[in-house]
């Protein structure tokens, strides 16, 4: 798939990947052998009929490709861009054994983009199902919330989504940058969900504006919690509150949601700095580093305590970051931050690390080499070490069971929580994971909610 040249793209926020041309899509689609095993579908958390939509592309029936894709996935433009297909459908593709699996993600994206460009004029009638009179409240409008809402709306439920921020989309809006997931695509897919009859209440922080019990006592017969994992983790090492040290959530929220990259046209500022260190090795760390570079930082480092093999980020994102000039400081872990008299960060004292025996995560445990401390000069630090669920919901809902690291305990298959009539799915139940795993959990919860009402 063509991409913007690394030199050019490191100076703009436009999308990096440019998408397939019609010819490229046809050529790729025609590689699918339509094997009877359909093993790609097993790899898809939301059960998309992958061979079906690929065949429709081959047949030149794009409206049918759209229909097949959206039958299971309400957010294909998003998933086509941010799903880790290489560990899901593409990993189970029959052609994977020969080393060249179908580029399912790219084809998904192609179909979604085709729809946005063409379907408006075809004006497809959205068939509204017969309302079944049941009301469901969905808390949070990220990938999980949008998915459960769309699935239930298609079944005739009256669904209202409550979102704390001023736009819908959750992490798709505040977290993932424009150059990886354009915001007009997120909003187009949100509009699709509302076109199914889903109501959207913005500026509504559940737990404060209404409690879950108030929702249940005021006409909603079921509540789905999809509030994600929004609470940033810090390291609790000296100097962490110095000026210039951001959580990735704050840095990305300023840049993506508040459009600080357009300051002062937009009112929200962000400190960019000349030398930026991003601590962490996940996708959020890559996103933060690449944003900092685009905002004009001269040097951007990824500081990660393990080696590249253990990095949780997608391969593609690591490669993109490297191509753009991000420097990787591996086997490196901060000990403390050093600041000036005005409380601004100037440096980061780090340990060199080595890898020991595997730990609980199955990855080799990083161990600090004694006496290996050295200093990296920095003026901005972004801490991207993961997030835990926001406690506001749990604090205000009696009967919810809270597990390790603040997650809401929910059945892995059905999403049922310990509180009657309340389901949960996505990062709130698992801790930080992926967009698609949240959507998968939401899909299973929608089935469970529907079964609950049908008795």
């Amino acid at each position, binding site marked *: 798939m063509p991409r913007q040249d690394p030199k050019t793209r490191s100076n703009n926020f436009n999308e990096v990947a440019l998408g397939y041309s019609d010819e490229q899509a046809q050529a790729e689609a025609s590689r699918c052998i339509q094997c009877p095993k359909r093993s790609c579908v097993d790899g898809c958390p939301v059960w998309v009929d992958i061979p079906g939509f690929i065949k429709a592309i081959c047949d030149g029936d794009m409206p049918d490709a759209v229909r097949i894709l959206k039958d299971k996935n309400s957010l294909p433009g998003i998933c086509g861009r941010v799903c880790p297909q290489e560990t899901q459908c593409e990993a189970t593709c029959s052609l994977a054994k020969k080393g060249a699996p179908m580029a399912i993600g790219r084809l998904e994206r192609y179909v979604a983009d085709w729809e946005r460009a063409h379907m408006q004029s075809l004006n497809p009638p959205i068939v509204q199902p017969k309302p079944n009179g049941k009301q469901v409240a969905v808390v949070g409008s990220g990938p999980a919330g949008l998915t459960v809402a769309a699935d239930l709306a298609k079944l005739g439920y009256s669904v209202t989504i409550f979102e704390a*921020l001023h736009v819908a989309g959750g992490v798709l809006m*505040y977290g993932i940058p424009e150059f990886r997931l354009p915001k007009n695509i997120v909003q187009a897919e949100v509009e699709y969900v509302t076109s199914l009859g889903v109501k959207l209440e913005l500026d509504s*922080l559940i737990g404060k*504006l209404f409690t879950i019990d108030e929702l249940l006592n005021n006409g909603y017969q079921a509540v789905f919690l999809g509030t994600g994992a929004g609470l940033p983790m810090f390291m609790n090492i000296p100097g962490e*509150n110095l000026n210039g040290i951001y*959580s990735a959530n704050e840095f990305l929220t300023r840049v993506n949601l508040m459009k600080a990259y357009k300051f*002062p046209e937009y009112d929200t500022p962000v400190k960019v700095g000349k030398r930026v260190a991003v601590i962490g090795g996940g996708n959020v760390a890559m996103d933060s580093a690449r944003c900092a570079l685009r905002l004009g930082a001269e040097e951007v480092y990824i500081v990660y305590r393990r080696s590249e093999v253990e990095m949780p980020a997608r391969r593609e994102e690591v490669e993109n970051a490297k191509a753009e000039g991000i420097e990787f400081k591996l086997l490196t872990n901060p000990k403390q931050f050093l600041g000036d008299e005005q409380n601004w960060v100037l440096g980061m004292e780090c340990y060199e690390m080595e890898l020991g025996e595997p730990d609980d995560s199955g990855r080799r445990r990083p161990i600090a080499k004694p006496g290996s401390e050295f200093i990296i000069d920095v003026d901005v630090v972004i801490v991207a070490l993961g997030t835990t669920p926001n406690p506001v919901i749990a604090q205000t809902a009696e009967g919810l069971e809270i597990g390790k690291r603040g997650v809401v305990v929910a059945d892995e298959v059905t999403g049922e929580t310990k509180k009657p009539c309340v389901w949960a799915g996505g990062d709130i139940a698992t801790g930080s994971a992926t967009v698609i795993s949240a959507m998968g959990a939401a899909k299973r919860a929608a089935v469970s909610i529907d079964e609950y009402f049908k008795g």
Partner: protein
Amino acid sequence: MYKILLKQDLVPNIHLFKVAAPNVAKKAQPGQFVVIRIDEKGERIPLTIADWDEEEGSVTIVFMEVGTTTHRLALLEDGDFIANLVGPLGLPTHIDKFGTVVCVAGGFAVATIMPIARAMKKEGNRVISIMGARNRSLIFWEEELHRVSDQLIVTTDDGSYARKGMVTEPLKELLETGERVDRVIAIGPSIMMKFCAKTTQPFGVKTIVSLNPIMVDGTGMCGCCRVSVGDETKFTCVDGPDFDGHQVDWDLLFARQRIYIDEEKRSFEQWQSQHGILS
């Protein structure tokens, strides 16, 4: 969109808006705040809820013209709309029957302290309020605060009205006279809150302050508003905004409030030039 039902200029550069937000009005409690955004290009800023009216479905916010956002806000009139208002946020002020409560307000925080003084009074406390302003022209709600207090002391920095001096002076005198004071609530500019806490510390009187660091989302998501209280990092938006003033790391708060001082200046200068205002 949230309609401004009423705009009042309390003093030339301090304004009051009553904003239609019926659900927020039902839930608001003393000490809580809202986050607002004027329009698509606006930033999100926290403003304390000064009052609310469940019947009318309104919340009242009071703000002073300081930077770009508050100047832009001041240009809005009755019937105009602000794009977003989310709340009520933060934990409410702990209201209880303590005995004698001293409420200290600096500058336009007299609006913030009103619902707290009122609730403390209603709970059966003896309420002594102290309000201070730089000069006479910045005094407002003297009568209103008096009404919910057993005693009111007014100060101006320059002595142009009432007692000359800072709010900490009458506060110290109260404590020195040996009068039993069970709790102090101090709200205003950070420096004033710091000195109120310093004043009460030798007397061992619990002093609650309402911190005002920079915020973005206001819902616990970003950590921008982190402060250090008793050597522990806290998020003001969800763990506060009220904290024990004797435990706050004030220098850290001051430093973090200045993070964007250059950007704020740049933004405001641009705004002024766009509006034909010479700085």
